């Protein structure tokens, strides 16, 4: 792992700003995420949470300011699998089973030590659905299948866009459990939510966006 130092800043935004047709979508943001930190991005509908996430993945180019990963300016080409993103679109192939979907992810991103697809699926509550095509899962089950990816992949930064949506209470607890585990392993995570759901693990950092 490149940065074993627990107090090291992993992800940092400096004066980050995204412009769409020269209108700022979100204002200049400054924040730094250290190893083991979870930050909650809060804001109303349309305040720019998803846009911020896409900027942080490098998919969108920031209008002003910059994003730094492990202290270096980063782009799609240089971040080398350090980041995993879970968006409104889950990135699952409907014709593959959850297990096969996981195998693709671990092929692309590598596999965390000791991680196992079936264990991960059991942990997100999908035992018995390992071989069902994802097409046949309910909305919440699909979300869980996507969450299983987080348990497999060795990325240090998790960017989760509304991970709580479509999940039942047990599923919300599951997301919180996953985040706590990740923080304990020294990862960092940025999670968007509408504040309607209380994040359980300690008091997280909050980044507030205004529409």
């Amino acid at each position, binding site marked *: 792992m490149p940065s074993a130092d627990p107090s090291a800043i992993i992800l940092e935004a400096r004066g980050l700003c995204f412009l769409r047709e020269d209108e700022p979508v979100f204002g200049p943001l400054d924040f730094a995420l250290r190893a083991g930190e979870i930050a909650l991005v809060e804001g109303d509908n349309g305040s720019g949470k998803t846009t911020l996430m896409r900027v942080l993945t490098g998919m*969108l180019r920031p209008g002003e300011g910059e994003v730094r990963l492990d202290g270096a300016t980063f782009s799609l080409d240089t971040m080398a699998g*350090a980041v995993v993103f879970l*968006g409104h*679109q889950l*990135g699952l192939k409907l014709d593959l089973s959850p297990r096969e979907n996981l195998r693709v992810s671990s*092929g*692309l*991103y*590598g*596999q965390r030590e000791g991680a196992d697809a079936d264990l991960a699926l059991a942990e997100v509550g999908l035992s018995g659905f390992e071989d069902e095509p994802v097409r046949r899962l309910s909305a919440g089950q699909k979300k869980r299948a996507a969450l299983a990816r987080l348990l497999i992949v060795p990325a240090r930064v998790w960017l989760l866009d509304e991970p709580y949506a479509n999940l039942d209470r047990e599923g919300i607890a599951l997301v919180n459990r996953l985040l706590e585990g990740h923080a304990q392993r020294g990862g960092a995570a940025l999670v968007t939510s509408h504040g309607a759901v209380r994040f359980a693990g300690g008091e997280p950092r909050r980044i507030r966006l205004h529409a």
Partner: protein
Amino acid sequence: MTHGSTPTACAALLRRDLVLAWRRRGDIAMPVLYALIVATLFPFALGPEPALLARIAGGVVFVTVLLAVLLSLDHLFRGDIEDGSMEQLMLAPQPLALLVGMKVLAHWITSALPLIVVAPLLAGMLKLPGTAMPVLILALLIATPLLSLLGAVLVALTAGSRRSGMLLALMLLPLCVPVVIFAAGAVAAAQEGLPWAAPIAWLGAGLVMALVLAPLACAAALRIAMDS
């Protein structure tokens, strides 16, 4: 913790696309059937005169293959973009151009290869003389990857909802025309007993260039498409 190696990633992606194609193996058979159908339609539309059919056989086979390849290319990236898999690919610690190349390879295997296998049958039904058959296969073996690669760039450009992509597509689509002209030309030459090596060589040169450039162009185009 094991970071995925590039070969592993390529293999995983290729495998995924092949499995997906296999899950919908009906779709693999489809370009073949489609080509068969088109080949059937021509005698209906033109009348069944063998001499006339033989005359147009080469051209019809290539136009058909072009259409079938383009038809199936249409879905090359769309599915991945709509279900969020494209973001996963772009964030993976692997060169996007290589991953895209794998997707094109999978597409070629699942849609062009079956076409090449049935091409002799089609050509036979259209009375193409047997002497021209090896040239037809050779031309198809070179022209179809070329079409897949060019088509992939085209599809990548139109992938986003951007107008500019459309414009470029209009410019790129005619690029497929020379490919077909050379390929059909080679077959026509062979049919008449003329030398056919030159057009094949041109095609080969084009393929080499496309193999290098098209994945890069695709990757760039996809970045543009996702950046909205």
